[in-house]
């Protein structure tokens, strides 16, 4: 049995090696929230769009409908010689790992997860640093000394956000209360604005006046609820300030667009490298958004304070604890 299996794997590997990875057939596989989720996936899509606009190179896109299709889609792209293939999101790591093993000549880049293979580039962000910043801003803004956090699912990636956010709040106001809620327990938690809105309303009734949404497409409902109730909300992943000017306090921007763009660019130039890429405040991989849509909400004193905190995190004067280091938030 085992011999048979190995034989079939070798056969597969051989057939795969016949396909030359020229890295001129870029592709992307979005996660199930779809490329127009106004958040994480759309960030990647913006990078894809920009790359196509800059270079004229078309990028093959695939939006899977369920878990099985993720692997199927990756496999089919790899078989047709697409490379590099960008896999968007931690939920794809198992599928990407399997397909990458079977197609050692195809280059894969996965965002938000780490896969240790010679043909995979893992791009992760220091979400804790960006979340720390917006947490600090939330604590400066709140009048009720109570701020909220709404995450999509109780999974390590989202805990990384909430952990950084809490540290930021406590840095400014050690006695402020942080109320944490999660939307659900399936992938649908990232695409459920109705539930997001309900949770936001419940937090507002508990005294929350600034809420940070780390929930992908679910955020739309949270911002709407904040707009209806006259509270403030903080966006995530993409710069979402424009969605509700006056309501959006800021956005914790994760430059997934840049990450995707750079993957395609380096691959085309032949400088694409496997291994781990970590993007934090210092590389502008994460940041807080300040633009014409929220400049009235953020006073010059706040801006100055934020600049100091940002510099202190980069210099190491402020140590932001990373949840994924020890699987705990130390609280």
């Amino acid at each position, binding site marked *: 049995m085992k011999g048979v299996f190995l034989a079939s794997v070798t056969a597969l590997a051989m057939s795969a090696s016949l396909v030359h990875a020229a890295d001129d057939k870029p592709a992307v596989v979005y996660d199930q929230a779809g490329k127009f989720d106004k958040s994480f996936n759309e960030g990647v899509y913006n990078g894809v769009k920009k790359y196509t606009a800059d270079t004229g190179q078309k990028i093959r896109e695939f939006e899977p409908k369920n878990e099985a299709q993720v692997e199927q889609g990756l496999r089919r792209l790899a078989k047709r010689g697409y490379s590099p293939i960008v896999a968007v999101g931690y939920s794809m*790591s198992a599928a990407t790992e399997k397909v990458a093993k079977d197609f050692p000549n195809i280059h894969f880049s996965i965002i938000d997860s780490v896969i240790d293979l010679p043909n995979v580039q893992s791009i992760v962000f220091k979400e804790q640093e960006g979340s720390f910043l917006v947490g600090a801003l939330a604590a400066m803004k709140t009048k009720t000394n109570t701020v909220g956090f709404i995450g999509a699912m109780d*999974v390590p990636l989202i805990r990384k956000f909430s952990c950084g956010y809490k540290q930021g709040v406590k840095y400014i106001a050690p006695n402020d209360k942080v109320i944490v809620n999660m939307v659900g327990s399936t992938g649908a938690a990232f695409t459920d604005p109705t539930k997001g809105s309900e949770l936001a309303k419940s937090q507002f009734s508990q005294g929350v006046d600034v809420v940070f949404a780390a929930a992908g497409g679910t955020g739309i409902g949270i911002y709407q609820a904040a707009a209806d109730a006259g509270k403030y909300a903080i966006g995530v992943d993409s710069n979402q300030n424009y969605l509700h000017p006056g309501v959006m306090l800021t956005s914790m921007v994760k430059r997934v667009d840049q990450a995707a763009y750079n993957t395609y660019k380096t691959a085309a130039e032949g400088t694409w490298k496997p291994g781990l890429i970590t993007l934090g405040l210092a590389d502008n991989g994460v940041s807080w958004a300040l633009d014409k849509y929220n400049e009235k909400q953020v006073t010059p004193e706040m801006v100055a304070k934020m600049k100091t905190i940002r510099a202190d995190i980069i210099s190491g004067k402020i140590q932001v604890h990373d949840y994924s280091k020890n699987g705990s938030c130390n609280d």
Partner: protein
Amino acid sequence: MSQAKVPVWVNLALIPLLNISLAFLISGLVIYAIGQDPFEAAGYMLYGAFGYNEGIGYTLYYATNFIFTGLAVSVAFKAGLFNIGGEGQAYIGGLGVGLVCLALDHTMPFYVIAPLAIIGAAVFGAAWAYIPAYLQAKRGSHIVITTIMFNFIASSLMVYLMVNWLKSPDSLSLNSRTFEENAWMPYLHSLLMPLGIDIGDSPLNGAFIWALLCCVGVWLLIWHTRWGYQLRTLGTNPTAAKYAGIDTSKVTIWVMMISGALAGFVGLNEIMGVNHSLLLNFAAGYGFAGIAVALMGRNHPFGILLAAILFGALYQGGAEVAFDMPEITPDIVVVIQGLVILFSGALEHMFKDRIEGFFIRRATAAQGK
């Protein structure tokens, strides 16, 4: 009044075929309306699902899940119970499979792990169905409501277990460690390779054979045992069943547990057959689709097998269409799948009564001569 009967093939073949054709016709119009070529899409769909070995493998791999959940729904339905909880039972059944594999893959050979994994799937799936069944039988809580609620509890439980206990500690992604190879359900392509049969590389695995065995098992159980008779009596007329001395609450509980066990076998296909590790969301809607499969298969194991293959083809062909015609978004594929369910499930009487009437009139006329 004559005893004119509708020929069997009308009910089993003609009406489903008409329904499906109509569904595809309307789907074609939808695709035409968004400015795409419906024939091209149909071509991709058919070719993707049945046109080459690998595609067929994927079709049957999806069908395996639909057979399990379709059987699960139909067994309960035969006893008049509407089990909407296939999703959660499949999820928890997979947990059972995963725990067996994680516990034994270092020490035991495949032929020990496989039967234990089957038992694990059955026990966990059945246990998850037991609670709603008990509440229905003894407390009168409606099974539709409780099984739906148990789907949510199942997904929350899985997230909790994966995050806090089962995920491998050194990564952010929510997977358990990968099982050793002796805990993998063998792929059919690697089983058939030594025989010189090349069926292409697809996730189709040994669970498909188990699914076929389950079809036979369910058929024997429902129509060829005393217990199956009790079950059908309960489904046809609960009052009569009670009057005849059947312990209805006992039958209710057992039927639901068998239903849950069947749904739990999805875990064999997904966890042991394909993913080789525990992960989230592998149930991916198969439990809900099982309701449509059972409806379309007329609650008969053979019909369910055919309906499951049709659904497998829709999934596989649909993925192919979305892949090769990027203008047809996955949402349009969902519309097509929805139309098939609508016409073959919900609207089945649209044609049924008229066509049956036609054949009855014809038969009566023939007798009259």
